[in-house]
């Protein structure tokens, strides 16, 4: 049976941990709100952009039956691909990184088995460490990036990817990240960044073009890659904070449960020791009679 002192120490230690998890939960909640605001703030742009892209694509398709060709739309046999893996820089966020890394690894191993040579581009320290330890080939790594990310930085990153792709260095670029559904629910998702697949349907209104629609579409495609990368990274960031908030919330709750259990045991032990003492006094007194 643990001594009273041991139990008191354990309770104190659990209480300290609980204070930390509670503080982290509050911090993540604030960060999550900011991250969510960023996701929401980017929506009008992507909605507007998607609409224009769809209309232009439809206009181009309508104009010539032969079909529009552009390097970013060109589908090639996959022999070398680049896989973008987005994880967090810090831990203590539940299964967030584990889930993503697990599905990323499965994806990469499947590709390798099919004879495709795969390079990784990691965003976030956790994923980077995981794959480095297992000596996967890492082309590039961005660490401590998500929290401070700006659109211009993402643009640069995307242009780099586009140039890899159009120079034929890679035949496809995949993006593995965690889609944000709600603070409590995130999903590991994969998305094909390159080649671009154009939205299929949509009608073309009568537009005036100051430049050929094909040219316009070409520069929109570049922008489209930047935008989808940017959005995915924003979502991954929001997911991370959501996952951490949920994890810290349940950690705080577990700590409460544990404190309760320990306190109960403490009381029982204390009661037992009082009882023993009483018996001793009583039986001592009886012996004297």
């Amino acid at each position, binding site marked *: 049976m643990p001594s009273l002192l041991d139990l008191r120490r354990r309770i104190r230690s659990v209480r300290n941990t609980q204070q930390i998890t509670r503080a982290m939960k509050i911090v993540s909640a604030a960060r999550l709100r900011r991250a969510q605001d*960023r996701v929401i*703030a*980017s929506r*009008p*742009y*992507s909605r*507007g*952009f998607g*609409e*224009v892209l769809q*209309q*232009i694509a439809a206009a181009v398709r309508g104009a010539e039956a032969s079909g529009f060709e552009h390097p970013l739309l060109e589908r090639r046999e996959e022999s070398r691909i680049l896989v973008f893996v987005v994880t967090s820089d810090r831990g203590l966020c539940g299964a967030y990184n584990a889930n993503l890394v697990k599905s990323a690894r499965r994806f990469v191993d499947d590709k390798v088995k099919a004879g495709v040579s795969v390079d990784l581009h990691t965003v976030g320290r956790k994923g980077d460490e995981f794959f480095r330890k297992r000596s996967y080939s890492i082309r590039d790594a961005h660490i401590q990036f998500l929290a401070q990310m*700006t*659109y*211009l930085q993402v*643009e640069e990153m995307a242009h780099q990817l586009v140039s890899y792709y159009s120079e034929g260095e890679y035949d496809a670029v995949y993006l593995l990240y965690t889609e944000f559904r709600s603070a409590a629910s995130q999903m590991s998702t994969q998305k094909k960044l390159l080649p671009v697949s154009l939205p299929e349907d949509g009608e073309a*209104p*009568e*537009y*005036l*073009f*100051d*430049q050929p629609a094909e*040219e*316009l579409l070409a*520069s*929109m495609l570049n*922008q489209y890659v930047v*935008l989808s990368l*940017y959005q995915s990274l924003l979502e991954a960031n929001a997911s991370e904070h959501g996952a951490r908030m949920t994890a810290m919330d349940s950690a705080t709750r577990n700590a409460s449960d544990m404190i309760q259990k320990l306190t109960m045991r403490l009381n029982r032990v204390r009661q037992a020791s009082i009882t023993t003492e009483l018996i001793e006094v009583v039986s001592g007194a009886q012996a004297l009679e």
Partner: protein
Amino acid sequence: MKHLLHLQVITPDRMVLDEYVARVTLPESDGYVTLLPGHAALVAELGAGELEYELDGKPRWLAICGGFLQVQDDAVKVLANSALTPAEIDIGRAKQAAERAQQRLGSGDYTIDYRRAASALHRAQARLTVATAHMEH
């Protein structure tokens, strides 16, 4: 009701402007255009420069760079890569950026990304013009 254009200036990280304006002048990739209410549907690519619009009879400015323009039924959507009001522009930084770009362009080094340097220069120049000429009083 007076005939107005619904002007929205949107960048990837925020909605910069959402107003009803009497006219708007903006830089397309190959020159400035002015749009008035009743304009035909239009889609175009944007360059870097100053966007001028008339709100309540007074002209106002934004420094914008890159992106696309869509006009449809008197709704003007400017999907810019960046858009700053005169008050938001950091003149010192814009000056530095312009100098840096000029140096890169004038260095005679053929390995530089010419298009990127040139667009950086245009962007910085657009910001400087807007900031210095139209500082809000």
